[in-house]
């Protein structure tokens, strides 16, 4: 293992986060605070509690997931896309670094950023609403697994994208609808049966449901199934990346 290389890539990416503190940390925190003010406090005060949990508290796990997914996909993709775009990737490709080490450096940094932002939002939320965490260990497990999985997903997009439009298409057009329709703001019990069935095809439903369960022990699907689904998605991302590395897809072609 070339640990120096992993350290260098990870450190480089984290330094980028410090340089762009406004954009990478403060802006998601402000956005999420707005959600809390509008949905949690203003509208939420007129919504009856869901399964014994106030609406503001109910949406907190979903909001954290929304930001975590968006941030991890965005950071994971830009981390590898940017050197590809500027050409500085020549150095990493010509260095004695295995693709796995490159992956650990970039994805590790993207996941770390996502986690930091997720925890900041959790702390912010506690100012607005009551937060209770029933299973802290499971909460962290869901958070970490989701961060890694979606950073890997972002990495795939970053390698695949040939321009900035393609780079943004998934974080902008795919992640938000999946999150909004994945029960971030409601329990899918509130939907008609047909849409409930459709919702089960949405991978984000399992993340939000499992994550919310670790807080309030209420879930749309069994938390074990949630964990399995994350595992499946993680394995899927890893095998796509494995194939990309083996063939040199869009990196060494």
């Amino acid at each position: 293992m070339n640990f120096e290389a992993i350290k260098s890539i990870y450190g480089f990416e984290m330094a980028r986060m410090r340089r762009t503190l406004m954009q990478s940390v403060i802006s998601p925190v402000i956005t999420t605070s707005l959600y809390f003010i509008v949905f949690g406090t203003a509208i939420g005060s007129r919504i009856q509690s869901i399964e014994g949990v106030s609406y503001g508290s109910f949406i907190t796990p979903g909001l954290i997931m929304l930001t975590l997914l968006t941030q991890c996909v965005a950071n994971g993709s830009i981390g590898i896309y940017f050197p590809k775009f500027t050409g500085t990737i020549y150095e990493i490709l010509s260095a004695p670094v295995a693709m796995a080490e490159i992956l650990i450096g970039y994805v590790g940094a993207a996941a770390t950023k996502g986690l930091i932002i997720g925890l900041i939002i959790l702390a912010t939320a506690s100012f607005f609403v009551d937060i209770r965490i029933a299973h802290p260990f499971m909460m962290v497990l869901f958070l970490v697994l989701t961060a890694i999985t979606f950073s890997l997903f972002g990495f795939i997009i970053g390698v695949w994208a040939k321009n900035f439009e393609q780079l943004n298409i998934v974080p902008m057009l795919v992640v938000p609808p999946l999150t909004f329709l994945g029960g971030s703001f409601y329990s899918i019990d509130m939907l008609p049966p047909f849409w409930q069935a459709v919702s089960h095809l949405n991978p984000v439903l399992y993340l939000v449901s499992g994550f919310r369960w670790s807080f309030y022990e209420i879930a749309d699907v069994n938390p074990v199934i949630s964990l399995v689904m994350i595992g499946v998605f993680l394995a899927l991302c890893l095998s796509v990346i494995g194939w990309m590395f083996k063939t040199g897809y869009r990196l060494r072609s």
Partner: protein
Amino acid sequence: MPPIISVQQLTKTYSNGFEALKGIDLDIERGEILALLGPNGAGKTTLISIICGIVNPTGGKVLVDGHDVVKDFRRTRSLIGLVPQELTTDQFETVWNTVSFSRGVYGKKPNPALIEKILRELSLWKKKDNMLRELSGGMKRRVLIAKALSHEPEVLFLDEPTAGVDVSLRRDMWEVVKRLREEGVTIILTTHYIEEAEEIADRVGVVNGGQLLLLQEKTALMKQFGRKQLKLELTEKLEMIPPGLAAFELSLAEDGMSLVHEYSHEESQDSIASLLSALTAAGIHFRDLSTRQSSLEDIFVALVEEKA
């Protein structure tokens, strides 16, 4: 000792069907300076990219210090430093950080003293805390060289190192190249500036259309292909070359005011003396004379056009 780099039957076809390399064989000796010449799109950069591990080969193989560049990439890549053709830099990084980063990705422990030495040698020390976007093109080129040297490579690739570079940088760069060579570093450079190859290379390779057209010691190459020309400016107009001078390879300019004599390195030098005395005997007087040796550039153009 085996060659430091051995390229065997190397081919590369890009996904769009473009055949960039059509079976290249090339052995590079330890400690030599090899210049690769060739027009744009000849395949020089592809060749370098495969040796450095940036591009996967389609066929054939490359050994660096006896190790395969694909299977044993850790061994081979840690021996190589690359200065790319394009000025690709992380615009928002500082000089110090980007050079230290390079050492890190090559798996070497930090060594601030070495980085300082490299930056000073390349006149970058005063700029070490500047962001790369604040630097001029020449300064960025220096940074790329510093990055390539940061992990103490045994082989250095310089891809078009002097494109758009001013005189002082060129001088600094050749100083660095000279020092590296004394330390036993093998240097491979590609260039369009043939004077450069002529000045510093030990051997010259000519690449065109994905093939290595020629690989030779520079001096042998100059001897083999190099022609010399003697030009005589005449005092009086000459209508035709007198029959008595037919034995010499002579040609008369259209205006009849100058004579050109072509000869090769191998021909004995007294051919000029006998030509001059023959001219005097024929009553032809000249007011000036000059000689010209064909440069690598002439050789190169002749070769590329011949095979095209």
